């Protein structure tokens, strides 16, 4: 190995160089072998440990002429003919020990430096033969994808679309066979969960089983893609990345109103808004000509940053932290790049400098805020979009001012000070305040406000002061807005603003965006991305398992006009997706993660889907779309209730059973059933969730109030809707609601035997029976209800119910 050769005998090499230099002839005409004699030994001994194949610090490699000429973060290391312009010379001659190379080593001697200078002045001739092997290729992710040719495969009849050819070619290379197609039940449940986040109804299931037409499945896919619940399901991973929440985070974690942004996301996905437009509107909708209310609402994406309103906080620092978060989030969501690393120093592994980070931040620098007051009274007022007509806006302001006046009147008046007269006044004031609040609420229901981005108008291109080691107080050089040097350039004369940045992100030549997005969506379907590290496409991220498939999908996505519905249609109609997830244990052991895709996906559902599925099975689910967040019941002593100045005002009626998407997302105390199933707090951007397995999950699904209500709901359906009233008929009906399939014989036996056992228990325990039956609305015989209740709890907790198969 070359790298090992390079390392052998650093000191021997030095000694030899020293000897050779004594006989060096200075700046004579170029002589053959000079590089090998005078320069290469120095580079090898002193430089390539840190600037070579093992570790290209500062993105510089000195083991090839091309890379030396190209240079790293500090510029071209070698400029042929111009030693004075070569960073290499500058750094080996530097007086500053922080800059002088080799770092932590003895400085080069004068004759050594002279030899290198002379070699550069002579044109830096570097014979091919001197560098073994090929020069390093740029990292794959930073080179635009080229549409690959579809590979030829042997088992051609398996291939339904190009995705399959790529998958099968890999399987055949590994001498593996794809799994059998999934059963119709399994397939329908899988695709329903994937596209709308809900299991199929029995009617949908029966219709699909009856439909023997050629395109029965394709019709189902079209139905699901057209469902308004599609947008709800696909909003969820997007909102993780966008760190959408209904509270500010930090100490007080107060409520904020930004759910119109959440509804915008759902609507845009349902409309199949092309992803480039989807991007531009969220990053810079306000800068579009004649921006609509919807386009401005979309910019809420970057108002999802946390906000610390604790007294004593430095507001400017808070605003700065929001800017930093905007850069890190943009890089994670679109570029699959861990740019946050470059906040403090040049990225250790990827070609992003600290300057790149702050140059991107400069695009966000003008995002507006108004500072009022001084010292600890300072507040930041950032822009809020009020979509109401002007007279309604004025009315709302008037009402709020009146309520505030009463508020301060109440504050001045300590309760119980002056007997009952004052209490009466107090009561009146409180009543009036409530009236005013109700009026404001009524307006807000019709015209909800939402947080948006706006730029301060600036004459100059935005600049930002770099922060040394990322420390807010350590200001460094001013940096002008720019995109990272390693990626495609900005259009020459485009204004340096967020709109330009947004267009740059979705430019077809961007090597990252399309790949990152198709990969993330792929992971939603298969449980694992083609690049397993969904948020890191850098050199330390995972290598793609199917690089050509990834590039096919990325180029296809753009050719499809950035249509995610078209992309999803292609994925779910592939044979790869339609494989059965059942496999023998040998196959599991061989490929536990299913990297090779020799079977269908099988993994635990996400937190939200578990709730929604449970409610759907039990018949309780409210399918209402959009609107303000809801507050389903949670235990009295949950931290949500007793932390901070906040009221978890439990929702009533159907709002208790809304989809998880609409549950009030409180950052510091997330609704426990979501938290326990790995939903992120959304303090910051998350791409790719964890999937853990804990007893707290079991306790949640057995004992949570909603879980118990769902079991009651399922029993009501068992008793009233099962096609036959015998125990086996009811058991099969309930099992099918949960898993979409009929139970096998053993399974059915187990359920009916358990029901009989449960029934005997309840017959002997009148109190239990009464308590269970009275707790839930029911008709019919209480013993029967209570007996089925225990069984229903089992069925709602099966691994299969909680998994996508």
């Amino acid at each position: 190995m070359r790298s090992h050769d390079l390392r052998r005998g650093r000191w021997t090499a030095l000694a030899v160089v020293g000897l050779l230099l004594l006989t060096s002839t200075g700046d004579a005409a170029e002589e053959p072998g000079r590089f090998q004699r005078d320069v290469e030994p120095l580079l090898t001994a002193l430089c390539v440990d840190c600037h070579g194949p093992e570790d290209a610090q500062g993105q510089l490699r000195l083991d090839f002429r091309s890379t030396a000429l190209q240079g790293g973060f500090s510029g071209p290391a070698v400029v042929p003919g111009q030693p004075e312009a070569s960073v290499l010379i500058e750094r080996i001659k530097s007086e500053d020990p922080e800059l002088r190379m080799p770092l932590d080593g003895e400085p080069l001697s004068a004759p050594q430096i002279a030899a290198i200078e002379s070699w550069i002045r002579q044109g830096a001739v570097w014979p091919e033969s001197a560098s073994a092997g090929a020069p390093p290729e740029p990292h794959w992710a930073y080179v635009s994808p080229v549409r690959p040719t579809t590979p030829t495969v042997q088992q051609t009849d398996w291939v339904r679309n190009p995705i399959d050819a790529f998958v099968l070619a890999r399987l055949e290379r590994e001498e593996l066979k794809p799994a059998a197609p999934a059963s119709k039940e399994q397939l329908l449940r899988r695709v329903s969960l994937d596209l709308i986040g809900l299991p199929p109804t029995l009617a949908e299931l029966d219709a699909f089983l009856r439909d023997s037409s050629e395109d029965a499945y394709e019709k189902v896919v079209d139905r699901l893609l057209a469902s308004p619940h599609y947008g709800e399901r696909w909003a969820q991973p997007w909102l993780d990345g966008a760190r959408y929440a209904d509270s500010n985070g930090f100490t007080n974690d107060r409520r904020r109103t930004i759910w119109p942004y959440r509804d915008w996301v759902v609507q845009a996905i349902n409309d199949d808004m092309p992803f480039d437009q989807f991007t531009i509107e969220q990053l810079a909708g306000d800068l579009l000509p004649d921006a609509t209310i919807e386009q401005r609402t979309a910019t809420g994406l970057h108002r999802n940053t946390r906000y610390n309103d604790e007294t004593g906080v430095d507001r400017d620092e808070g605003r700065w932290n929001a800017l930093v978060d905007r850069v890190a989030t943009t890089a994670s969501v679109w570029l699959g790049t861990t740019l946050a690393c470059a906040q403090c120093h040049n990225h250790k592994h990827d070609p992003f400098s600290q300057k790149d980070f702050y140059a991107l931040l400069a695009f966000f620098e003008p995002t507006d805020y108004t500072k009022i007051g001084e010292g600890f009274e300072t507040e930041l007022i950032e822009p809020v979009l009020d979509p109401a007509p002007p007279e309604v806006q004025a009315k709302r302001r008037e009402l709020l001012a009146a309520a505030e006046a009463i508020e301060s009147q109440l504050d001045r008046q300590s309760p119980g000070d002056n007997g009952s007269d004052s209490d009466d006044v107090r009561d009146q004031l409180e009543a009036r305040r409530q009236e005013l609040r109700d009026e404001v609420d009524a307006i807000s229901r019709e015209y909800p406000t939402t947080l948006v981005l706006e730029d301060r108008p600036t004459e100059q291109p935005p600049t930002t002061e770099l922060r040394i080691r990322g420390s807010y107080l350590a200001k460094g050089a001013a940096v002008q807005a720019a995109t990272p040097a390693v990626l495609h350039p900005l259009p020459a004369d485009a204004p340096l603003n967020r709109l330009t940045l947004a267009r740059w992100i979705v430019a077809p030549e961007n090597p990252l965006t399309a790949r990152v997005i198709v990969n993330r969506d792929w992971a939603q379907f298969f449980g694992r991305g083609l690049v397993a590290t969904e948020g890191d496409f850098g050199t330390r991220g995972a290598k793609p398992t199917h690089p050509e498939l990834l590039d096919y999908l990325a180029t296809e996505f753009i050719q499809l006009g950035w249509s995610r519905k078209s992309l999803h249609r292609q994925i779910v109609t592939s044979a790869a997706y339609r494989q059965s997830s059942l496999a023998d244990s040998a196959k599991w052991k061989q490929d536990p993660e299913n990297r090779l895709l020799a079977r269908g996906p099988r993994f635990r559902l996400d937190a939200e889907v578990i709730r929604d599925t449970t409610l759907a099975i039990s018949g309780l689910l409210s399918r209402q779309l959009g609107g303000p967040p809801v507050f389903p019941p949670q235990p009295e002593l949950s931290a949500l209730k007793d932390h901070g100045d906040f009221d978890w005002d439990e929702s009533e009626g159907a709002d208790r059973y809304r989809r998880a998407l609409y549950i009030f997302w409180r950052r510091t105390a997330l609704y426990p059933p979501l938290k326990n199933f790995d939903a992120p707090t959304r303090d910051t951007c998350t791409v790719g969730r964890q999937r853990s397995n804990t007893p707290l999950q079991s306790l949640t699904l057995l004992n949570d109030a909603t879980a118990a209500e769902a079991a009651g709901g399922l029993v009501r359906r068992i008793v009233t809707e099962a096609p036959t009233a015998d125990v086996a008929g009811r058991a099969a009906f309930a099992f099918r609601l949960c898993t979409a399939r009929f139970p096998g014989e053993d399974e059915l036996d187990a359920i009916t035997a358990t029901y009989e056992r449960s029934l005997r228990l309840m017959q002997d325990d009148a109190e239990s029976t009464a308590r269970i039956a009275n707790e839930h609305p029911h008709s019919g015989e209480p013993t029967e209800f209570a007996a089925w209740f225990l069984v229903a709890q089992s069925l709602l907790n099966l691994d299969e119910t909680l998994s996508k198969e």
Partner: protein
Amino acid sequence: MSSPLVLLQDQTRRHFFRRTGLGIGTLALANLLQQEGKTGETSRPDDPLAARSTHFAPKIKNVIYLFMCGGPSQVDLLDPKPQLTARNQQPAPRSLLEGERFAFISGVPQLLGSPHAFSRHGESGLEVSSLLPHLGSIADEIAVIRSLHTEEFNHGPAQIYMNAGDARGGRPSMGSWLTYGLGSENRDLPGFVVLLSGNATPDAGPSCWGNGFLPASYQGVQLRPQGEPVLYLSSPEGVRPEGRRVTLDLIRQLNEQRLAATGDPEIAARIASYELAFRMQTSVPDLMNLADESEATQRMYGAELGATSFANNCLMARRLVERGVRFVQLYHRGWDHHGLDEGSDLLHSLPQMCAETDQASVALIRDLKDRGLLDSTLVVWGGEFGRTPMIENREKGANFLGRDHHPRAFSMWMAGGGIRQGITIGRTDELGYNVVEDPVHVHDLHATILHLMGVDHTQLTYRTQGRDFRLTDVAGHVVEKLLA
């Protein structure tokens, strides 16, 4: 098939596979497998995750961390400053104020000598405030660090920093890191338990014991003295243990059949989780029942049945440690003495806070010692930052004494296994403003606690967002002077 491989803090096998080779904290697995060995299970020969040894032999097995929310005043409790008293009411030197940011102080504040006396105790001659008589009585058994410093000066961020080594949020807390690294000795209880005095959450809320980017399995679990001790612990209305067993038996039967049909090892883990959940439904109420403690013990702590006091929680902490819970954290609010009113006054509230905590903290140490648990347990007492040696001048002419937040120097004490006893580490300047000797950063504190637990803080890592994260970020040194 239903191997108890899966502990409370277990993460899924597939999750492990995802991480392998990418800087996974290897201790976690090593301990899972050791635990498995201990209970007589054979580790699977086909398991690609072979057992690995821990970093080095631990000095302690447990940590009880008494978190004093609000920022207890070091110059009034653990770091006496005669010069500060001598220069009481003089303007603070300008040199201290230049370029400084304060939460509330503005202009040139006056120095404020402590209104409380200090006295020397034990052979070590440790000086502590007269407000802490019980602590004084064990002066020779504790180590005081007077040179802590942190990066944050607002409560929420500073509490998160003290727990997670970072204020930005989204990082795991120390308890989560240790649970991830070491697992739990008790299969029927969570490995990381949190208790709150009076059910008052710290300013930063449950983020203080959050799992951050680690799987949810490693989150701190809050135990409540009233109502349901753990969320969702009680079965639904009318479901008795026999009924619950009916439900669980069917879950198990059907899951086993599905395991056979699909081959997915994940199902075995799910089966184990349900069984553990069932055991928790019994073991946690047993744990919470303080009535089986002797009256003498209850009296020693100042505990009262049914209370939600710090004293009760200290007693509970001992019971948890006895049962093999490795990381117990108590939160006690009210140390934010700004001097705005009686409730934040150094003359009224500070003595009250000391009275609420001093006896029970010390009783905890004595009790652990009596039961032979102190050698294997570290008790840590401290807040998220200290307080300024200057009076806070927010309310001009107020009648109360208070101090502003101060991240540059503050004090903590420790007792228990692995540390030198009867010593003081670090020194602040004559006013108690800056550390002048042996500074101990929050990262150093974390590195030291991990070290005592047998963990090299540079090696306990987790790869996410493109890099290996650790509790101590890129810093932290073990405080060697503290080690026995």
